[in-house]
């Protein structure tokens, strides 16, 4: 009882009445007593007499340099403290997701995400969205989405992606399809999921899913892109599969194993799920899998990644691009830095037009649309065509002498300064961190530059 007394808002109607009446002699005192700041700085929001929140529209904005009132809705301007305070409430990251816990699921929908480089991909999220649709089918039964991941740790964001349960198999990230298949088969025996969902990627879910389907004696739905409810189908769902050439569609009932394309469903945005580890089962499953893995897993052995010449990688699929623009004066230094960093070289249109880089290295709307994980733009101011070309890049780093250019606005990290000096410092740092291994390469940069020059001239 005492706690509820403390929470209750006590109102003084007379004081509020005085606060509303600007002509009242005690108006200022009443405002101060109610917690609204009296005088020049006006309160923006307060509780009205009927318990509703009232707003003072005159209190927004700030007085500009010429003495006129300015209201800036872009959020860029740091104005009066009042408007800042008001905005802070709006922009604060608030969690609107509804928590959903499924204690006793009637069935499982197993999803095997790719989790490229330890994160869920967009493709994985779409797949979880599809699995949620199948699990949350209105009816008597409530299913749970089971995420099956491989590796040492469970990737973040599975709860927001829509997984109710998680099973993690400690299998290394190398290519071991037979071992993974054995793990999935042990899970199949333990939980008997109603559906298996995998992303149709060449070496991830596409490979594993087809192997799983063959083991289960099931004809999988490959290239699935649409799922509809269907009374006549045995599973209650029908699906549409795209053929490998993209010219044909095959409508069919949804089988147990579905290998789906990207954008097969909307990702989960409104709910948050438990993503709890399945207890009791997983230990048994892992042991079974280890036993099986030793028997079968010997026919394919992963010998590890092979060093690839970064300049041989096509620009649109390069992971790490060092791109040069009009601001580059020291081209030898740029090529040297690209070689030391092991980055694929790109260029803006100006650099290509001036003959410093070949045309097939041009990034942008008129060149190649790139999708690099890291894009380092050196001396590129960021024309709109160029920014379009790098839309799909994850992280953009700008090295530029102009702090006000569009590329700096787009970049996640900008270094303002002379590009040649920064590149040289970067190359030196990387070489130093690699130590002895690169010191030999450093001894022969001149002939490489000569080669580059020959290529540029040609």
């Amino acid at each position, binding site marked *: 009882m005492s706690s509820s007394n403390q929470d209750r808002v006590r109102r003084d109607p007379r004081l509020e009445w005085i606060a509303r009446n600007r002509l009242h002699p005690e108006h200022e005192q009443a405002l101060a007593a109610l917690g609204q700041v009296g005088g020049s700085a006006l309160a923006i929001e307060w509780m009205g007499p009927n318990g509703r929140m009232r707003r003072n529209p005159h209190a927004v904005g700030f007085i500009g340099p010429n003495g006129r009132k300015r209201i800036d809705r872009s*959020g*860029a301007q740091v104005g009066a403290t009042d408007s800042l305070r008001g905005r802070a409430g709006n922009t604060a990251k608030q969690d609107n997701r509804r928590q959903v816990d499924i204690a006793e699921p009637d069935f499982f929908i197993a999803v095997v995400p790719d989790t*490229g480089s330890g994160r869920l991909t967009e493709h994985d999220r779409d797949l979880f969205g599809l699995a949620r649709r199948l699990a949350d089918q209105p009816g008597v039964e409530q299913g749970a989405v089971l995420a099956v991941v491989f590796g040492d740790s469970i990737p973040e964001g599975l709860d927001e992606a829509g997984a109710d349960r998680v099973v993690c198999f400690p299998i290394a990230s190398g*290519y071991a399809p037979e071992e993974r298949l054995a793990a999935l088969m042990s899970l199949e025996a333990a939980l008997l999921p109603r559906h298996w969902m995998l992303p149709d*990627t*060449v*070496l991830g879910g*596409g490979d594993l899913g*087809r*192997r799983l389907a*063959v083991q289960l004696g099931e*004809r*999988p739905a*490959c*290239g699935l892109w649409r799922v509809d409810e269907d009374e006549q189908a045995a599973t209650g769902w029908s699906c549409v*599969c*795209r*053929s*490998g*050439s993209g*010219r*044909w*569609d*095959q*409508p069919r009932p949804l089988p147990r194993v579905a290998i789906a394309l990207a*954008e097969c469903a*909307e990702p989960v*945005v409104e709910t948050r799920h438990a993503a709890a580890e399945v207890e009791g089962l997983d230990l048994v499953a892992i042991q079974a899998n280890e036993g099986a893995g030793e028997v079968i897993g010997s026919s*394919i*052995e992963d*010998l*590890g*990644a*092979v060093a*690839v010449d970064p300049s*041989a990688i*096509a620009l649109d*699929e*390069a*992971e*790490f691009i060092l791109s040069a623009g009009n601001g580059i004066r020291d081209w030898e230094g740029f090529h040297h830095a690209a070689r030391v960093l*092991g980055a694929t070289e790109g260029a803006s249109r100006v650099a290509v037009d001036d003959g410093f880089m070949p045309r097939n290295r041009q990034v942008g709307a008129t060149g190649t649309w790139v999708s690099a994980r890291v894009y380092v733009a050196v001396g590129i101011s960021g024309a*709109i065509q160029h920014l379009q070309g790098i839309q799909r890049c994850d992280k*953009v*780093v700008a090295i530029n002498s102009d*702090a006000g250019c569009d590329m700096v*606005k*787009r970049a*996640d*990290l*900008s*270094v*303002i*300064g*002379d590009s040649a000096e*920064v590149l040289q*410092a*970067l190359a030196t*740092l*990387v070489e130093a961190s690699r130590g002895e291994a690169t010191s030999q390469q450093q001894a022969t940069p001149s002939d490489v530059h000569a080669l580059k020059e020959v290529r540029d001239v040609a």
Partner: protein
Amino acid sequence: MSLEPSSVNSSSVASASTQALNIDVLVSVGRHSLTERPRRADLDARALELALRLRDQRGAQVNACHVGEGGQRAGSDTEAALRDYLGMGLEHLTWIDAPQGSDALGLLDEHLRAGQVSAGPRLVLCGMRAEQGEGSGLLPFLLSESLGWAYVPAVVEVEDVASEDGHWYTTVLQALPRGQRRRLRVRLPALLGIDAAAAQPRQSAFGPARRGRIEQRQLETSVIADESLANWPLQPAKPRPKRLKIVTATNARDRFKAAAAKAESTGGKVLQDVSPEQGAEAVLTLLKEEGVLR
């Protein structure tokens, strides 16, 4: 990289004379994506290219095989496409008769089992998926299951074939996303699915294409209809709907910002008035965080 290429090469060359590498290439009839004309399938042609290179380098024996509708052979589209393969430098090609809509699995299984001649190593190459029909890329998986051989998808290069402890192994390169490669050691016999990143197939020459023999073959295995195709026929593909940009903003300002998509500051860090070394340090930290520095 536990293998030393030089030593492995020498041993394999020595054994190549006694036990030749047997390569079967499974080829299909492709269709040009734009003109829809029948042609050699691109991925299968790349597989054949790989096999022919192995033949030139280490004297492997290459057999190509196609399963398809017989009917009127001379002048048919299928024959024209198969002659494209012959024009790449094959002397003969096996055409296994199968009525339209039948399952190729049993026929290929029997053909490959019968092709087991000597104790030499055995390799089966094929494109990862067909250009016609369902094209789900499932056949090599089914075939590897029924034969009990390993299947490796997305192969771009066969580096080496060598024997060790009485077993034959091959070292292959597998294409990873983003232009990366991975080296795998696979125990033979094995099926390899060839990726689009493999070497360009050589041009088909007219003379060899005319001279090459197409050998018809009837198998005893009873032909089974492909029940998936029979039950659920293919339809011309409809364009997939474009995904709409969903904005779940609660206030007008955010909705407006989402609608007027202009590249604007995403709260990136700007380092101004720093020495080049400090700037480079910050960039290096980001590169290491993203794990792109090798």
